[in-house]
C-alpha cells in the first residue's frame, strides 16, 4: 500500500500521520472536575498509563471511584459507554460511596440533558445506579503475588470482556512496601508489571490508572515528600498527576505528560463525587 516515496512500514508499525487522526478521534474519560479535565487535555487518555499520587486523605480513591463510574457514561451523553476493572489492594473501595457517586453522576447527566427521557427509553433505562455498579469488575488483592497474578490474568479477561475501557489499581504501592527486602528484585518485578500494563493499555485501547502513595525521601539535605516505589518506578507511567493540599483546598498538579505542559488545578470532593472547587473558601470535606 505504501507508494514509492513512502518509507517501508514494518508490520505492527504506523506512521505518525495515520496515528494523528486516530488520536484526534479518541474520547477521554472525564474526571468530574472541569479544571482537572482541562489540564489533562480533556480527561484521562485511553492507551496510556496515568499515575495518580498523593498523601492519604486527599482524594485518590475518590478519584479512582469517580473514573470507574464516569467511564460508563453512555455514548449519547458524551461518554465512552465502557466498563471498569477495579483492582483493590487496600480495601478502600466502599460500595455505599460508589452508589452515592453513581447517583451523583446520573443526576448531573439528567441536569445537562433535560430532554433525555424524550429521546429513547433504552437510554433512560441505562441510567440507574444499579447498572453502574454491575459494570464494575472488582478484584480484591491481598499480596504482591496476587497482584502479579491478576495483572497476568487481565489479558485473558480483557479478551473476553472487550467493553472494559479503564483499569484502576488502588493502590499499586501497598503490597510492595512491606514484604520486599530485596530492592533489586522489587525493581525487576515492578518494571515487568509496568510494561505489561503499558501493553494492555495499547492493545485493548483502554486507560490504566495507578494510584500511588507518598513517602519521605532525603534529598538535598532535607526530608521531602515524594511518590513511593523509588526513582525507577517514576519512569513507568505515561502521565503523572499529583494531588496535594494547599491550605484547605485540594489541588491536582500534572507532573508528567508527553504532550501537555505542567499545570495545577483546584478541585473538590463533594457528596456527589469529584467536582470543580466552588469557591476559594472550601472547607476540608470529610467523606463519610
Amino acid at each position, binding site marked *: 500500500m505504501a507508494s514509492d516515496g513512502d*518509507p517501508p512500514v514494518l508490520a505492527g508499525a504506523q506512521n*505518525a*500521520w495515520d496515528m*494523528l487522526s486516530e488520536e484526534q478521534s479518541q474520547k477521554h474519560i472525564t474526571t468530574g472536575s472541569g479544571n482537572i479535565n482541562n489540564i489533562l487535555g480533556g480527561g484521562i487518555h485511553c492507551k496510556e498509563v496515568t499515575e495518580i499520587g498523593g498523601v492519604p486523605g486527599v482524594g485518590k480513591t475518590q478519584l479512582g471511584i469517580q473514573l470507574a463510574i464516569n467511564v460508563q457514561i453512555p455514548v449519547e451523553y458524551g461518554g465512552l459507554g465502557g466498563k471498569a476493572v477495579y483492582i483493590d489492594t487496600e480495601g478502600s473501595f466502599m460500595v455505599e460511596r460508589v452508589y452515592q457517586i453513581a447517583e451523583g453522576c446520573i443526576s448531573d447527566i439528567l441536569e445537562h440533558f433535560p430532554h433525555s427521557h424524550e429521546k429513547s427509553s433504552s437510554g433512560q433505562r441505562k441510567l440507574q445506579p444499579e447498572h453502574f455498579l454491575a459494570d464494575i469488575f472488582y478484584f480484591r488483592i491481598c499480596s504482591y503475588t496476587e497482584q502479579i497474578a491478576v495483572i497476568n490474568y487481565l489479558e485473558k479477561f480483557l479478551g473476553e470482556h472487550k467493553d472494559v475501557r479503564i483499569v484502576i489499581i488502588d493502590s499499586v504501592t501497598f503490597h510492595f512496601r512491606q514484604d520486599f527486602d530485596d530492592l533489586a528484585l522489587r525493581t525487576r518485578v515492578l518494571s515487568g508489571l509496568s510494561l505489561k500494563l*503499558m501493553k494492555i493499555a495499547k492493545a485493548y485501547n483502554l486507560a490504566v490508572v495507578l494510584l500511588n502513595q507518598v513517602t519521605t525521601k532525603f534529598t538535598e539535605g532535607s526530608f521531602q515528600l515524594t511518590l513511593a516505589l523509588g*526513582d*525507577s518506578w517514576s519512569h513507568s507511567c505515561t502521565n503523572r498527576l499529583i494531588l496535594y493540599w494547599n491550605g484547605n483546598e485540594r489541588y491536582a498538579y500534572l507532573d508528567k505528560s*508527553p504532550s501537555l505542559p505542567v499545570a495545577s488545578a483546584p478541585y473538590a470532593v463533594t457528596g456527589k463525587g469529584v467536582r470543580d472547587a466552588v469557591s476559594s473558601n472550601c472547607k476540608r470535606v470529610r467523606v463519610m
Partner: protein
Amino acid sequence: MAAAGISGCGLKRHCALADHEEKEMMKDQCGRFWNGMDLLKDVTENKHFLPTGLEGIDTLLGGGLRQGQVTEITGPSSSGKTQVCLHSASYVAARHMGAVMYLDTSNSFSPSRIANITDELPISLVQEPRHVRLKRAMSSIICESVFDIFALFEVLHRLELSLLNDKVNNVGSKVCLLIIDSISSLLAPIIGGKYLQVQVTNHMVSAGNGALKPALGESWKAVPHVRLVIFRDHGSNICTATVLKHTLMASGRPMKFVVPS
C-alpha cells in the same frame, strides 16, 4: 562451495580448503580495512549531522546527532527526554533528511505533539502549504510500540534487513534516525548501524547519598558514543543539559534550553 556452515562470527571448516580459496573467503568475511588518514577524512569531511532542532542541545553536540553514532539522553523523570526525541523526529522529517523509526516503550509518542512541533518549525525554502508539509513530514515518522526485549530484537532485525535490501533508494524514504524511548525500560543492548544515527533515552536511578546516576550500570557506559544528562527546573520549561561523554567535545559543560510548549 567449501564454506558451508559459516555461522555467527566464526568460520566453520567442513572440508579442507585450498590456500587461495581460504584467503579469498577470509577477506570477504572480515571486510575491508582502513588506514588512519581515511578515517580522519571520513570524520572531518563526511559530517552527516542530524540536528535535533533544539539550539542548546545542537550546540552541545557540535551540530547534532552524528551518523554512525549512538547518542544517549538520560535524566530524571519528566526532565524533557521524550521532548528531545519528539523534536529530533519532527526536525529530521520536516527537513527531508530521511525517515525516522521511533520505538516507544511507554506509550509516550504523541502525534499531536509532533504536529505541534512541526508547525512551529521555521518555514522551509520549498514553497508548500503547511498541511502538505505536515502530512509529508509525519508520513515519514514510523512509530512502533515495543514492550519487551524480544520484540525489540525482532524489530531491529527487520529494520536491519530492510536497510540492507534498500541500498539503492531515494534519500527521503530511507530510515536515517532510530529513536528508542526508553531503552532502560527494556534493559537491552542495541545495535548502532553504519548508516544510522541512534538516539536512546535512559533513566536515572539512585546512586546512594541522594545523588542520581544513569541506569543500566557500568557495562552500558561504554556503549553510547555520546551521553547527555538533562534536568528540568521545577515548574518551568527551561532545561539544563550537560555532556557526560562525547567523542569530540569536552564534557561537563552545561547548557540551558527551552522546550517550547
